[in-house]
């Protein structure tokens, strides 16, 4: 099957698919950046939020950071395998990354269920509103990334569209980077 012109051309010297991912990430920087900047400025203006932040579980946050860093590691190894033409290994490594995503969401579900059962909900106060909004938006990105990764891994296992392994990897690392900033903002600064 022939590919559309837009898929194969490279006006900037960057393959179109990868350039598209950078554009997506540029918009994501504004979305997450705006949200986190808003949180940060309110947090500075409301020192009393430290009392609310004290209720977040640093160990759970740290464990999820470990999970995402590990999933990024397997994603970049998948990219390396894809570049060497080893689609099967790339697919297997992407499946490990999806496992990381599932673990992250599982831990987050447990964490949220515990917090909600203690009465900390999105309407409790400003801190918890930001907490659930920022972490929730991030979790949606984790879920979306894992689903797309499943499709990429399916093709990679058949040695098809191996360049997409890098593309989903770049997105995944960005999701990791967002969490790297969410972790100190929501779990350490108390």
């Amino acid at each position: 099957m022939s590919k559309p012109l837009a898929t194969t051309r490279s006006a900037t010297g960057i393959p179109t698919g990868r350039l598209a991912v950078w554009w997506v990430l540029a918009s994501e920087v504004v979305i997450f950046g705006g949200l986190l900047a808003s949180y940060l400025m309110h947090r500075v203006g409301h020192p009393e939020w430290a009392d609310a932040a004290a209720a977040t579980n640093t160990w759970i946050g740290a464990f999820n950071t470990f999970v995402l860093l590990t999933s990024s590691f397997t994603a970049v190894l998948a990219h390396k395998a894809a570049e060497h033409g080893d689609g099967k290994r790339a697919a297997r490594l992407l499946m490990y990354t999806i496992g990381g995503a599932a673990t992250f969401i599982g831990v987050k579900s447990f964490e949220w269920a515990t917090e909600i059962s203690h009465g900390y909900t999105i309407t409790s106060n400003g801190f918890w509103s930001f907490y659930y909004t920022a972490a929730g938006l991030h979790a949606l990105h984790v879920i979306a990334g894992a689903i797309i990764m499943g499709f990429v891994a399916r093709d990679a296992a058949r040695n098809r569209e191996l360049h997409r392994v890098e593309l989903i990897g770049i997105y995944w690392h960005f999701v990791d980077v967002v969490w790297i900033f969410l972790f100190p903002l929501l779990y350490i600064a108390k």
Partner: protein
Amino acid sequence: MTEYTHPNYRKIYVTLLFLLAVSVAGPFLGIKWVTLITAFGIAVVKANMVIQNFMHLKWEKRIAKYVLAVSLLLMALFWGGVAPDVMKHAGLRWTNDAAMAATARGIGPAHAESSTESHDPAVTTEHDAVPAEAAGEEAPSVP
């Protein structure tokens, strides 16, 4: 992308885990500026390592860096325009009474329980004591 050889990802991964451990350990010292450095300083270092090495921005063509730089610039513009009014609750000719009241009221140890209380209008709570004009949390009042 310019020509590159894959870096030693394992080494980068182990360094990232070490930095994570430092950022978790930092607050145990109980020194505020150390916590700020181990939390946010290390976050910047970790993010940069991931962006440069895992996302391969180090080897990417300049246009991708410009695209990202523009979005960061927009963020800085947003911060510069909004942050001064949000971080402070009073200025030369304005005060944010609601924000000041919220800070004075505090969260309190029982804030979680209070959120589940009934909001029956007949019941007067500490929250209700806030003046009506202060209900719009961030609406500053100009004298």
